[in-house]
């Protein structure tokens, strides 16, 4: 039953090994390994500053000098005249390396460099954030002289300067290792900082005309080997030795970054990227690093509440649960889970719906979605993991061709973006994006735009796969994509936005199949993949089991020791639930971590207004005003659980803070108790034991979809005069409520703007610098215009940025909006 995949590229090619000795010890490492890495294999640590395994070598700091002898042509080992930088020199057969451990020359050279590094270093460790975790401090102790002979005048600068609203630079502490500048240039592709000036006055500089606009700038703070770069949010807040660290995983997106949460006396002080080679390597994005203050705001729920006389009033848990149970029992109820919760929590929501509420009306998609998408997820995504042949980060590293559709990696899954950039730089991976405009993100991937208006993605995908026709087929970009797709093994990455384009998900899967490649779905929210596999969809039970399949249903019923049969017909999806609730067909809603406006459904508010709403949340949200019962739940940093990242890889996290806040699964089990049902989700152990009892099942492919032709795309709307087709997606930093309370981070969000082509602009006599007003579907926003080459008669705006909320329109692929010049009259 389980499909095994042979998609991994056959046998791994033989790696040529090179044998050498380091401090007299023999070691054999792959060809092209750097000496400093080879030494690490032996547990020999050579001091270093500029060296970083994620960056191209520069050999600038000279801290890593070692003595090297090499065999000449006759095989006589000859010492090289000068000590060599071990971070730039690759190994050679028969090489003899002597580090500071066995060579007086290397030791003296290292001590000399260390002393020189400290010449212009302020040695203000007692007031420096890095003090206590500083590579300079540590290595000065391990590889430096006991005292300095420098008694002259140090270079000083006024301190500090802002590199961006969230990164500060103390120039006098900088040892000019160029890690930050190389990271920004090479890894992130945002070369907005560079070394400027000469000699000891060399310094990290910013471009005056352009801000340091990067979603990855926090990594520079983390890899700075001294306290020169600091994050505004953490600067002077605590000392490293006062912090307690908990390994965790980021809750902000489906990239799945490992994090270290550093806290002190019950308060999170900062978060750092934790190295996980298979996933985020050593990096994370600024949102993951800095957006952690939202649970600490003063609108956090502390006690359960019930609505009395129109007001929410705090009550005991007992009372709140009783009121909730009574309300739900009295009517037909459904469950809406946001894509934010961990998969154990999601599992509990699904189980509550089936077992306690007797319904399959449960959906994790608190965003635009479709029935087609649900079918696609059930056929192609659920159960896909690195073990079952799903696309992985490592596959991206070596892919020859990647096609992006409905997916803007830099905004929607930043670590996927970094991997694609690495693939582009190191493996010359060709990236194509089916989108209306070439973004800076695509540019950084060396990518090629396959221009397509919103709603035409299906056509373009079908044309790429060789069937169908498209007016774009003639272009060079299209021809290049066709050629690239002839190499087998292409990877198609689809984003969650594709859900609303009829036929597009199926067309993407078809394209992958026709190119002997694979397709992967990259959702935005951290909890979506886990919720999918936990069975919180109307047609899916946990582990990819199908509601419609009798055997599957029985398997789950048995697992759950259900006393009655599980509901047999697939339930309603989010939209249908809201529609039904708005007309009273559904009377009760259990809502967990949903911002109702994210769904962008016209009936959303009415549904909540009419229904009896039990809201599980941590803070005041858009659901709260409609809630009849509020049950406080633990935020991410206070709960244990796991996500599945977009690959389907489990990403477990522990609670960083030990508080009394209860995880959703526990609250739900108490609610179920009150409903007279034993949910068995009191502890994580219980939930995991159940989930693990289900044999993994790989995606079944087109099992439920065989009948019928591929869905044909809808015709693209043709905008009338003064109208344009709306293209929109979210930027990484926006008005999302989980970024609340972090002004320094918000300061680096991209300012909203309306992007359109010169032709579009001309038809409306719009010139650069103008304001434009975009309206439609009851929404009206005014933002500055930006004119760049893109698909004509399409206007792009961010979905949910400051003073630019288009969530109500985002669900319609190819919504037509009215665009007028100037501010809203």
């Amino acid at each position, binding site marked *: 039953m389980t499909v095994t995949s042979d998609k991994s590229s056959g046998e791994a090619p033989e790696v040529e090994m090179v044998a050498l000795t380091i401090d007299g010890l023999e070691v054999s490492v792959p060809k092209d390994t750097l000496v400093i890495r080879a030494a690490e294999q032996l547990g020999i640590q050579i001091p270093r500053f500029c060296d970083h395994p994620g960056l191209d070598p*520069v050999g600038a700091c*000279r801290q890593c000098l070692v003595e090297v002898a090499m065999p000449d042509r006759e095989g006589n080992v000859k010492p090289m005249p000068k000590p060599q930088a071990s971070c730039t020199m690759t190994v050679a057969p028969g090489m003899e390396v002597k580090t500071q451990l066995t060579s007086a020359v290397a030791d*003296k050279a290292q001590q*000399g*460099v260390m002393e*020189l590094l400290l010449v212009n270093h302020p040695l203000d460790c007692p007031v420096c954030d890095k003090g206590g975790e500083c590579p300079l401090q540590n290595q000065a102790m391990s590889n430096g002289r006991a005292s300095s*002979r420098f008694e002259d005048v140090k270079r000083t600068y006024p301190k500090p300067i802002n590199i961006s609203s969230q990164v500060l630079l103390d120039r006098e502490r900088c040892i000019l290792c160029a890690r930050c500048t190389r990271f920004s240039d090479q890894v992130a592709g945002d070369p907005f900082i560079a070394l400027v000036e*000469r000699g000891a006055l060399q310094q990290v500089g910013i471009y005056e005309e352009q801000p340091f606009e990067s979603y990855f700038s926090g990594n520079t703070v983390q890899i700075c080997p001294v306290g020169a770069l600091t994050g505004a949010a953490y600067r002077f807040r605590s000392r490293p030795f006062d912090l307690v660290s908990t390994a965790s995983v980021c809750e902000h997106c489906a990239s799945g970054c490992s994090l270290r949460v550093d806290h002190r006396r019950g308060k999170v002080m900062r978060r750092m990227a934790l190295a996980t080679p298979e996933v985020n390597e050593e990096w994370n994005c600024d949102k993951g690093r800095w957006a952690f203050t939202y649970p600490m705001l003063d609108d956090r729920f502390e006690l359960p509440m019930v609505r009395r006389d129109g007001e929410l009033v705090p009550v005991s848990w007992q009372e709140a649960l009783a009121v909730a149970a009574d309300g739900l029992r009295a009517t037909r109820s459904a469950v809406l889970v946001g894509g934010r919760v961990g998969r154990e929590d999601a599992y509990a929501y699904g189980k509550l719906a089936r077992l306690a509420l007797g319904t399959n009306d449960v959906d994790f998609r608190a965003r635009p979605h479709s029935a087609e998408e649900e079918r696609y997820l059930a056929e192609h995504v659920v159960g896909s993991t690195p073990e079952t042949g799903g696309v992985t980060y490592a596959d991206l590293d070596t892919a020859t061709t990647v096609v992006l559709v409905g997916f803007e990696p830099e905004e929607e899954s930043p670590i996927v973006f970094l991997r694609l950039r690495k693939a582009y730089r190191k493996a010359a991976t060709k990236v194509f994006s089916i989108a209306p405009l070439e973004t800076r993100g695509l540019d950084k991937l060396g990518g090629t735009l396959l221009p397509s208006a919103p709603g035409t993605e299906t056509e373009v995908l079908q044309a790429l796969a060789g069937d169908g026709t498209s007016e774009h087929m003639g272009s060079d970009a299209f021809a290049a994509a066709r050629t690239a797709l002839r190499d087998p093994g292409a990877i198609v990455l689809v984003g969650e936005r594709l859900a609303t384009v009829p036929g597009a998900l199926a067309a993407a899967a078809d394209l992958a199949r026709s190119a002997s490649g694979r397709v992967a779905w990259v959702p935005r929210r951290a909890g979506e993949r886990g919720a999918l596999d936990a069975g919180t969809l109307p047609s899916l039970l946990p582990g990819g089991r199908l509601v419609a399949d009798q055997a599957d249903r029985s398997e789950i019923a048995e697992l759950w020791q259900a006393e009655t049969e599980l509901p047999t017909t697939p339930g309603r999806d989010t939209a249908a639930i809201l529609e039904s609730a708005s007309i009273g067909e559904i009377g009760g809603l259990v809502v967990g971590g949903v911002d109702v406006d994210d769904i962008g459904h016209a009936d959303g508010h009415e549904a909540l207004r009419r229904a009896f709403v039990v809201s599980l949340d941590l803070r005041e949200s858009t659901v709260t005003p409609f809630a009849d019962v509020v049950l406080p739940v633990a935020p991410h940093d206070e709960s244990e659980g796991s996500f599945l990242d977009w690959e389907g890889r489990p990403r477990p996290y522990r609670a960083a803070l030990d508080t009394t806040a209860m995880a959703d699964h526990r609250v739900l089990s108490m609610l179920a108790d009150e409903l007279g049902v034993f949910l068995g989700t009191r502890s994580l152990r219980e939930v995991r034991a159940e989930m693990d009892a289900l044999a993994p099942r790989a995606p079944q492919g087109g099992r439920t979809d065989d009948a019928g032709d591929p869905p044909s795309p809808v015709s693209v709307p043709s905008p009338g005069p003064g109208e344009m087709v709306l293209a929109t997606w979210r930027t990484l930093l926006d008005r999302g409520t989980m970024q609340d309370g972090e002004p320094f981070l918000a300061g680096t969000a991209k300012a909203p703007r309306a992007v359109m082509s010169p032709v579009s602009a001309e038809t409306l006599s719009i010139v650069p610098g103008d304001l434009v007003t975009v309206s439609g579907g009851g929404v009206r926003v005014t933002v500055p215009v930006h004119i760049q080459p893109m698909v004509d008669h399409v206007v792009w705006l961010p979905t949910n940025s400051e003073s630019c909320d288009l969530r109500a329109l985002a669900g319609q692929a190819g919504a037509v909006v009215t665009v007028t010049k100037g501010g809203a009259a």
Partner: protein
Amino acid sequence: MATQLTPILTKFWDHPQSWTLATYEDNEGYQALKQALTMEPADLVQMAKDSGLRGRGGAGFPTGMKWGFLPPDDGGPRYLVVNADESEPGTCKDIPLMMAAPHFLIEGVAITSFAIGCNHAFIYVRGEVVHVYRRLLRAVEEAYAAGYLGKDIQGTGYDLDVTVHAGAGAYICGEETALLDSLEGRRGQPRLKPPFPAVAGLYARPTVVNNVESIASIPPILLHGSDWFADMGTEKSQGFGIFSLSGHVKYPGQYEAPLGITLRELIDMAGGMRDPSKKLKFWTPGGSSTPIFTDRHLDVPLDFESVAAEGSMLGTRALQIFDETVSVVRAVSRWIDFYKHESCGKCTPCREGTWWLAQVLERLEHGKGTPEDIDKLVDICDNILGRSFCALGDGATSPVTSAVKYFREEFEVGCHTPWWEAFPPEASTLFNQRSVKVNA
């Protein structure tokens, strides 16, 4: 037998219009190019090898061998880049050569480019010498007009464009890889090697970088034969070179002579010391980056090997002559100020070391040194030399260590006596006899 001058590149510098194409053509100009275009490129490379010509830019690397390092033609572009950045203190041969007789260089560029299969050559000129830049531009223009550059040169079907580029005035941009970065429009800082320029140089294509004088020597070698060239000079340092005398000699200037000539001979040719009553105290054989010599070294043959055997380097044959009125501490201090200013900042030893050395030297200069300072200077140099990323840092240590080696007692004086008391500046002036010390 006294060595004779060999005016070849300097032959007609005294012509009132020495820089024009006409004058050059009157002096065998462009005959070598015409001959070269009839030859196999490989034979030209061989000729350069046979002549024994070694790079005149300082390191003395065999020029023909460098050309031979280029990988086989892969159909893509390959470049010749002429290093005309001449910024080493004391070095002044390329700039006068380009001023007085620029066509030697341009003909050399054409021949070399043909030899290595290059269709676009670059001359990177030091930014401050605008007059030289203009003269080169004019000479290139003349050469295009006369059909020595451009399309289908001399009807042979060979195309060559020459771009003259003015730098922005940084010593480090004379280092060949920093030069390439600068030429590409980046900040001039040395590149990590490998890859070497021969494999991935300008725009990551195979590139030969040669000094002005190296390239300018090619036309005479071709015209008169590699044997003619190899017969001059010494066994391993063949040919002629321009020796630039500056400082306390009667007639400072460029003296073109076979390698192996001695300073004693050169000073004689230069009319002796500026003030015959003053003794020679110290001198640089090849610019400020080469360890200084003293009057003990007057008879060292100025060829690569002999100078190296005495602990210095022939470098760029920039002979800066200092008589006994000069404070060596003060001279070294000025040189280190230069290195501190010109260090590109990339690597720690050079960047921080020159910053530190400069401060210690300044104290010694002002009589404020401490007894530990002298050993400290030497040890700082030990921590820079061979630890830096490029040769600029190494070069910065030369004046310090050699000065301490020969004149340690003068550094000791710096622990209590300021330079102006130990070496009254008026003693160095030509009018010192009549000068009176005011308010002493």
